[in-house]
């Protein structure tokens, strides 16, 4: 099952690269995808059945909208801090506990946090994310956990777990 | 013309590094800088104003192409450069394990 998934994903990637639907192209792509699936399947994500459940894609689209909105807000915030003559920054590293269980979900959360300006994920150790923040708004763990991961976490849980 | 001169100066910088530096890693870096300047010189010689990259489109034949011969020579030379650099690195890491230093003059004095 995992082999077939990797095969189909590689073939789709090949067709997007070449963008031609001729017979030799598809044959060459199929052979290349076969080699790719034989080599790289054991490094691929383990639970591929979730790729077939359509409601996850629905939540993913909603998550994209939420993410872009958060991104715009963070952009304006960072632009304000940069352009302000007094430079009101208060940088620091905070330790955030996440409720997500799977590794892929943690990675998606970390990448989302890194993509929004102002926050950068430094490391993940077990359930804790170490995040560098340009303006540490509060030092209470519950408050800053809600501020940083609150917008993303529930959608990511619906997408991946 | 000034591009040729700058390319030559890049070569001279690499030569200066090879002669005067005592650290083996820096000598390897200087050698690769000399390599790069040579590649750049070949690519500069083959360039033509208004030419396009040497890929023929059968539907739309363009008259002027950039010279493909220096590009083919440089193409093989780049991969050979990688091979020689990694071989140099292998020698350097061996010497470091044996003598514990990158300094070429100390290695010469040690005579191990």
């Amino acid at each position: 099952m995992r082999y077939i998934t990797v095969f189909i994903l590689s073939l789709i990637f090949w067709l997007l690269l070449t963008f031609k639907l001729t017979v030799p192209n598809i044959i060459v792509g199929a052979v290349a995808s076969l080699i790719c699936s034989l080599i790289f399947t054991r490094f691929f994500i383990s639970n591929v059945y979730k790729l077939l459940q359509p409601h996850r894609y629905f939540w993913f689209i909603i998550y994209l909208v939420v993410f872009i909105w958060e991104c715009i807000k963070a952009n304006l915030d960072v632009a304000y801090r940069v352009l302000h003559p007094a430079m009101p920054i208060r940088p620091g590293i905070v330790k955030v506990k996440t409720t997500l269980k799977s590794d892929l979900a943690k990675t998606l959360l970390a990448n989302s946090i890194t993509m929004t300006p102002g926050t950068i994920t430094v490391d993940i150790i077990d359930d804790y994310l170490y995040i560098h923040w340009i303006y540490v708004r509060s030092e209470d763990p519950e408050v800053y956990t809600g501020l940083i991961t609150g917008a993303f976490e529930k959608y990511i849980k619906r997408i991946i777990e | 013309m000034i591009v040729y001169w700058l390319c030559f100066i890049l070569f001279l910088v690499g030569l200066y590094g090879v002669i005067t530096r005592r650290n083996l890693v820096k000598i390897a870096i200087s050698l690769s800088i000399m390599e790069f300047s040579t590649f750049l010189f070949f690519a500069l010689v083959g360039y033509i104003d208004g030419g396009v990259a040497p890929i023929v489109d059968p539907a739309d034949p363009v008259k002027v192409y950039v010279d493909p011969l220096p590009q083919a020579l440089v193409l093989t030379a780049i991969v050979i450069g990688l091979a020689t650099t990694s071989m140099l690195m292998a020698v350097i890491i061996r010497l470091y394990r044996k003598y514990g230093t990158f300094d070429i003059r100390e290695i010469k004095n040690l005579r191990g």
Partner: protein
Amino acid sequence: MKGMTLIVKKTTQLIAGMVFMYGIYIIVHGHLTPGGGFAGGVVIAGSFILLILAFGSDFLNLVKEESGSTLYENLAILVVLFLAVSGLLFGTRVFFLNWFPKGTVGQLVSAGMLPLYNIFVGIEVAASILTIFLALIIFKEEISE
């Protein structure tokens, strides 16, 4: 050698296959678009190096044995030599004779034997660069033990 953090590992799992497919694309389309055996071979070696760097050398059990990639490399250069010699059998006394039917310019299957040369030179370059990298990794591990 230890692996990197969780973020790098998970991203590598998703990306490595794509890098590999991109290398094959560059090799196979070498006679139509920029690229060819050298570029694609280095990209394929890069995908394996990415895996080894991200997961650490313990994760791949092929790391302790670099003879496999050396075997591929020698086989590939033998095939290139054989293809070059095969012109002698079918044509006049010309080394590197392109005796395959040429096809129309711009199609994927065209240019006679050039795609075959591309493919095998690609395998050769990928295997040799991977071998050099594995030799360095194994050497450093043996030193640190």
